[in-house]
């Protein structure tokens, strides 16, 4: 199908981009384009204006400031994947980047675009949730920061106001002893969307009483989600076979993935997520003894 026509605009400042976005109700922000152009080609979205933000200074930068990693919205997944310092501090994000699309797609697709698309199984979802990232947006009233767990409302819908767009993602650094990981399964190895995915972070893994566990799940609800109940269950306690069995049964009792998914049945996803959680805890070395 041929795309319907539109005007291509390339603002060079945040103010200009926000103004264009506000003035043109039927407009779309273009970053990497790997989702937007497909949806435009399919006729799913027909913007009259496409606003390319790649010409705005600062949106391509990866910076480390005041104990935080700040990724510009236009930073590509290839750059995230190849950044050794990100791998050192945020392994779950690096592991997600390695699963993301394929070479060609990673070379264009951006972190900001992935957040803005608000897909339930988005690669950035679970890692940004466990790291308590903040999404920085710019709009008519200037800059504001939205905690990541308040960004996504439903598939394709975010909490951004009119005229606002994502400019940065800011992630706090954690002590070196913190462990984190991302695992997903997909129908084929290589280029496919996640059937489901999980990210786990453990602070103070060596001191059981001081342990804080964070768990996020993707592709099992309308948006990527934190599993708060599981987190408080696992935090501050020794983890053994019995604990793991509770986690697995929790998945069965509390998750409601949609039955119409092309990629996996609800039952399958729940089993897989329990198993992936066990794998990660075992890798972290916090799982005592064998499973019963």
């Amino acid at each position: 199908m041929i795309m319907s026509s539109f005007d291509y605009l390339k603002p060079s400042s945040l103010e200009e981009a926000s103004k264009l976005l506000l003035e043109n109700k039927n407009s779309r922000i273009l970053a990497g384009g790997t989702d937007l152009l497909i949806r435009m080609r399919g006729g799913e979205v027909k913007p009259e204006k496409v606003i390319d933000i790649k010409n705005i200074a600062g949106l391509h930068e990866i910076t480390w400031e005041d104990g935080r990693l700040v990724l510009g919205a236009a930073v590509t997944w290839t750059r995230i994947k190849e950044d050794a310092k990100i791998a050192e501090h945020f392994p779950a994000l690096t592991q997600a980047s390695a699963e993301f699309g394929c070479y060609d797609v990673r070379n264009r697709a951006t972190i900001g675009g992935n957040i803005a698309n608000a897909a339930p199984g988005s690669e950035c979802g679970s890692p940004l949730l466990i790291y308590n990232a903040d999404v920085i947006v710019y709009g008519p009233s200037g800059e504001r920061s939205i905690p990541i767990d308040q960004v996504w409302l439903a598939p394709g819908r975010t909490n951004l106001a009119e005229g606002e767009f994502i400019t940065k993602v800011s992630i706090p650094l954690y002590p070196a002893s913190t462990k984190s990981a991302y695992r997903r399964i997909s129908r084929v190895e290589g280029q496919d969307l996640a059937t489901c995915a999980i990210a786990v972070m453990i602070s103070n893994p060596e001191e059981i009483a001081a342990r804080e566990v964070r768990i996020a799940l993707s592709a099992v609800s309308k948006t990527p989600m934190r599993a708060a109940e599981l987190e408080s269950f696992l935090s501050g306690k020794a983890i053994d076979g019995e604990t793991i069995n509770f986690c697995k049964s929790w998945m069965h009792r509390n998750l409601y993935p949609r039955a119409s998914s092309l990629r996996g049945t609800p039952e399958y996803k729940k089993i897989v997520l329990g198993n992936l959680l066990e794998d990660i805890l075992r890798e972290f070395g916090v799982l005592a003894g064998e499973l019963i």
Partner: protein
Amino acid sequence: MKHTITLNVNGQKYTVDVEPQEKLLDVLRDKLDITSPKKGCEMGECGACTVIMNGKAVNSCLVLAVESQDAVITTVEALHADGKLHPLQQAFIDAGAVQCGFCTPGMIMSAKALLDTNPTPTEMEIKEAIAGNFCRCTGYKPIVDAIQSAAAVMKKEGA
């Protein structure tokens, strides 16, 4: 609204008028007569349209032509020099990595982007690099073999 863009394709500078909805792939094929990038899925899934843009392999069906202002683009057309095939092209022929040939230009550009940054890739790295390039004929093995032997030839030639 038309835009006039200037881009460098295979060492030659082109100035061309494009509509916003035209893809880089359309402009290469229909306006510049560079037809090695193939139109396959047009959804960034098959990799038949892969070109190297500013040093990175990209799906040219997922890049608006207007976005390629000032870009440096390389396609298979630029690989042979002085009547001699590039080691990747020769290796694809020798290994039987070309059957119907539709995926070959994209496959070779993904392989080139890999070898440009990683001259001695492992088998897994090769598979990763071509994960976005579909081949429905060969079963991939001859392609991986070809990229491995091209890497060896290029290393020898470079040494």
